[in-house]
């Protein structure tokens, strides 16, 4: 299996937040993430953005 590029990994990471990805896709992404720190960061950051927008305890109104 060919290694995913960071661009492809980004697309899969995003789609993984919106749909169920196939086992094959998940494996390819896992392979990429295990070797790529930049994409691992992005994965965490996308999860953080989701939390920032959806978590009711994240309150940006207090100031």
């Amino acid at each position: 299996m060919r290694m995913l590029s960071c661009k492809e990994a980004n697309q899969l990471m995003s789609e993984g937040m919106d749909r169920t990805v196939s086992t094959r896709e998940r494996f390819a992404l896992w392979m990429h993430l295990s070797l790529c720190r930049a994409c691992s960061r992005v994965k965490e950051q996308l999860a953080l953005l989701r939390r920032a927008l959806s978590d009711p305890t994240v309150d940006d109104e207090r100031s």
Partner: protein
Amino acid sequence: MERSVERTLDSTALSRERPVLLRFALMQVRQKDVAEDLVQDTLVSAMSAIGSFSGRSSVRTWLTAILRNKIADHFRAAGREVSLTMDTDEGDDEVDIHFAPDGRYVHAPQDWGDPERTLTDKRFLEALHACMKTLPYAAAQAFLLREVTGLTTDEICKELKISSTNCFVLLHRARLRLRACVEATWLQPSGAQRPRKAR
């Protein structure tokens, strides 16, 4: 839940959605009182139109649709051009500006530090709001419906009348742009330096 047999929809069920609706409105309308008014209007409209709720969509989807119209009306009244039709065709440029031809990052993603600290960092949240405004309308709508309201992509497709492929593309672009924008806005030293060591 006591009322489990009938799928009745009453004011309690509607007001349960209030926090999510308010969040959704606040991401677009930054004044809290305006956002609260819009949500209140939405709930009142929903109450009076409760008979027209088909039950085919979720309560949240239904309420969000009403709220989206209220927000669009609000923007229009304020003289802002708002088109509820989705202009989804921006080409691949939006994705390509973030990557070199070989698929590597143009700007390597930075370390955002401890997530819990980030989420309480006022500057981070300010950057997030400022960057939301830079998203194209269609992408912003799809993204907010997904991340704030938690609708499924199927529900979003129906709501925005776009194909599911289009929906994934919009969401992907929104995330790419938002991530890069937040990073650039929040982490760029501007006057007040905050020390940040890369690990």
